């Protein structure tokens, strides 16, 4: 804030987000994480355009090969190109991660804000949250997938149907923590004087939430967003391992990893690539979360 009093030139507006970015930039882990995450997103988005090998193309003569010029990541037991599969799998895994996170975030924020803001809805909504928290997630997830797989498959096709299912199941079962955090923040925000100030102006609830509450709960939301991506990717891999996810010829990182564990001693690099992809993505996203948490913490950022 330096010499605001003496400057007379045109204002140099500095948004909070610029500050956040400045602080974020100083967190080395977070920067590396963000760079890697962007890199991996670009890679899986545009990679398949450059690396045009079909992930499902079987070249049985080239099975179980190590890395080579033709197959930089080697091939699997049917001679499919691991690199192409990791790219294709990454698309799905990241898409699942991001979409499920967005869904969970949307639900969590909605419930959290409404519960925190409207006193009368607080108790029922939080009971609902407790209820969801009390539901054993993985078992229920499995049951739900068993139940609705075919309906959705019939309606949207095998891939889209399962995608919708996996994403919504992960989303629906992981919004509660966000809701709790957001509610807590909203409750304390509500006591903040600027909200009181807005009320004394007569700002109606809708605008109050959009203008004052939501922008100020963005930070916990962003942090849970990063964690949400990581959790969703891991959960998808668990579902894949238990054989309830996407069709068998539809690669995801989780499936590639679980398929290749049996080849671990025979063909170690096959395990390494999807394993590395999952770990590094989760790691980078976690580091981004860490950096964001620091960057959004006013105590640290303040000065």
């Amino acid at each position, binding site marked *: 804030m330096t010499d605001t009093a003496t400057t007379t030139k045109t204002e140099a507006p500095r948004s909070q987000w610029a500050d956040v970015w400045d602080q974020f930039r100083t967190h080395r882990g977070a920067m590396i994480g963000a760079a890697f995450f962007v890199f991996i997103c670009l890679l899986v988005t545009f990679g398949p355009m450059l690396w045009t090998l079909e992930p499902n193309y079987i070249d049985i003569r080239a099975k179980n090969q190590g890395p080579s010029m033709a197959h930089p990541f080697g091939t699997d037991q049917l001679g499919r190109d691991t690199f192409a599969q990791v790219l294709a799998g990454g698309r799905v895994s990241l898409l699942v991660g991001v979409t499920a996170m967005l869904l969970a975030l949307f639900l969590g924020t909605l419930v959290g804000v409404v519960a925190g803001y409207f006193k009368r809805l607080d108790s029922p909504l939080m009971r609902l949250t407790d209820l969801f928290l009390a539901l054993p997630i993985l078992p229920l997830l*499995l049951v*739900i997938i068993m139940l609705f797989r075919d309906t959705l498959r019939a309606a949207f096709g095998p891939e889209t149907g399962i995608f919708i299912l996996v994403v919504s199941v992960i989303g629906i079962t992981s919004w509660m923590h966000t809701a709790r955090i957001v509610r807590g923040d909203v409750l304390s925000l509500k006591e903040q004087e600027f909200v009181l100030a807005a009320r004394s102006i007569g700002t109606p609830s809708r605008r109050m939430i959009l203008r004052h509450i939501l922008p100020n709960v963005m930070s916990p939301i962003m942090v849970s967003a990063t964690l949400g991506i990581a959790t969703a990717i891991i959960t998808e*891999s668990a579902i894949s391992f238990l054989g309830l996810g996407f069709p068998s010829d539809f690669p995801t990182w989780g499936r590639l990893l679980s398929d290749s564990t049996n080849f671990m001693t025979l063909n170690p690099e096959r395990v390494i690539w999807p394993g590395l992809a999952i770990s590094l993505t989760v790691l980078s996203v*976690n580091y981004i979360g860490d950096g964001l948490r620091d960057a959004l913490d006013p105590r640290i950022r303040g000065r």
Partner: protein
Amino acid sequence: MLNYTLRRLMFSIPVLLFISFIIFLILDLAPSDPTGNLPLTIPPEVREKIRESLGLGQPMPVRYYKWCVQFFVNEPLNIWDQYWGTCSFGCEDRLRVVSYVTRSPVVDLIVQRMPQTLWVVGMSYVVGILIAIPIGVISAYKQYSWFDQTGTFVSMVGFSVPPFFSGVLVIIIFSVQLGWFPSIYDTTLKVVSWDTFMLQVRQMVMPVMVLALQTTAQISRFMRASMLDNLNQDYVRTARAKGMKESVVLLVHVLRNSLIPVITVIALGIPAVFGGAIITEQVFKVNGIGQLLIIGIQGGDAPLVQTLTFIFAVMIVMANLVADIMYGILDPRIRYD
């Protein structure tokens, strides 16, 4: 405190009933038919008879009521009778919750599975916490040091590696290559002597390791954050101003305060660990609760799945309660009237 506990306990009854109803509802939608596993040669009339005997012909609320009676009345009575060797309220024709697939009472199956799950999952949790807390403390105290950075990295890797991968990896390293530990968990082993105890320890090492990695990863992060919060507090400065040693400041003043939120996380994590152990149980053939559940789900064994998921729900609700009570005990500021 007592009031609070009682109130929470009482409140948990409708919650649990409601949860059980939801679980019942979800499973009711499932396409699994208990007679589906009967041989195909059984004529339809007989099949129908069997369905009726299982209460399947009746409307949903009736079936739910029947299940409730079986689970909340008959099963506890049965445990009572088994324990005391008595026979109260007509123990002969008491209807029990019976698995569709194995035809044995679900509760017996669960009781059979409990020991190994408790051994492995419980131990891994304890081990994980014991490792996590010092890591969290040191990481926070030496924030941004190499130890902190390494700890952060390792715990995030631990969080990001799926157990079906790390499990197989440790099997290949420690069972196949080194031959130190068995890769298959022996559920029939009874600890009666030092040797059997060592056997038990050896067969637990790997699953405990894999599970503890995840626990450690999460709890050490919480511990670190909580320590960091507290290290900036005024009372820490007071303790230093009193001339207390750094070790006392850290391990007495800060640790106790930092543990309060972490205890909650630990208590709330218990059910998740049980649920999350499903994959680890598969990998090491521990055949505990998790594996039972998977089999139940795959086999369409509704009573089994329902009872198990409900038990998970009970555990979560109880863990919540314990967490809150622990909170009150550890933090004298919290006094639930």
